[in-house]
């Protein structure tokens, strides 16, 4: 693959692998940031913020995951196609999660005993539901 970003350092296509060697300090800095984020997420979990607790925990975890993937797993300097595979996988996992929750979180409302109330609060009926 001549478009390989790791080959940009050399003008001649000699067929050898040219690694992008990141400095040791960068790796240690990323590790320290990950530890700080872990301490932060434990600290924030002790504060009662209702539903925000989950959102904050997931955002921090995602930030940590992004650091690991970008620097430890070298996606920053890697073939862009690998990043596409990774992000594409997350996209499909997200579709899986969203469609499943859209089902499981609304089951009781669609078919309660023998009715078909869509929304208990408004009394709105399900499309095509029982009369």
């Amino acid at each position, binding site marked *: 693959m001549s478009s390989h970003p790791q080959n940009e350092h050399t003008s001649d296509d000699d067929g050898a692998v040219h690694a992008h*060697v*990141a400095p040791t300090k960068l790796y240690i800095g990323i590790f320290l940031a990950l530890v700080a984020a872990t301490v932060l997420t434990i600290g924030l979990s002790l504060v009662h913020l209702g539903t925000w607790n989950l959102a904050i*925990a997931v955002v921090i975890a995602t930030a940590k995951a992004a650091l690991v993937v970008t620097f430890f797993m070298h996606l920053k300097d890697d073939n862009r196609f690998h990043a596409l595979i990774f992000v594409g996988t997350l996209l499909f996992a997200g579709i899986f999660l969203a469609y499943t929750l859209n089902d499981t979180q609304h089951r009781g409302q669609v078919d309660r005993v023998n009715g078909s109330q869509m929304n208990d609060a408004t009394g709105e009926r399900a499309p095509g539901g029982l009369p």
Partner: protein
Amino acid sequence: MSTATTDAPTASLEEAQPDAAPQDHGGHGPKFLAHHFDTPVQQFDAAKLGMWLFLAQELLFFSGLFVLYSVYRSWYPADFSWASHQLNRFMGGANTIVLLFSSLTAALAVRSAQVGDRKKTGMLLLVTIACAFAFLVIKYFEYVHKFEAGLLPGDRFHPVAAHLAASTRDLPIPQHGGSFFGIYFMMTGVHGLHVIIGIGVMFWIWLRNQRGEFSEQFWTPVDLVALYWHLVDLIWIYLFPLLYLID
């Protein structure tokens, strides 16, 4: 692409010497280059692509468990909160730090392999393996506590009051606590299985490193095993707050 330039001479060489032994196949390139690849970079790209596809499969595999978790947590939020308080945040947090540190040493092992420092690569791989064992030891103590406290999956969920967290002792035992611990043991168990497999593979790569198979020109296996190990870390980064830190 270098394919076109190297294919032609190889093909003509084979035609000229039909009796050549199979291991001489073109007689091209360094020892680490498999004969079905033209160049080291082609071999490297193929290996990396394969590894990323495997990691994608791993993520999709775990996504089933994360969806299961999400469905049950959305159904029984109070039960999940109660059950989460039974987990030891200190041990979970310690294991998070251990895994993050092992990810650092794995990344540094790849770096020293890239610059051809064989001794350092071996040492860093051993530190990573040691961290993996430390993770399992901490997990073992956590599991033992769950067994003693009766915090088990499904029908076997019979909590022993004396072993429960002080903050929850006065609360009623939740009806769906067994669902949480079913999910807890499945997610941490499958993750732990990945840790055990990681130990085995990293030990194999360590052996190959000590045998002198890797150099500045060839360190792909170290890179790939580190990618796998980072994925194990990545899964735990989500498991820790989702299981241990429910408000």
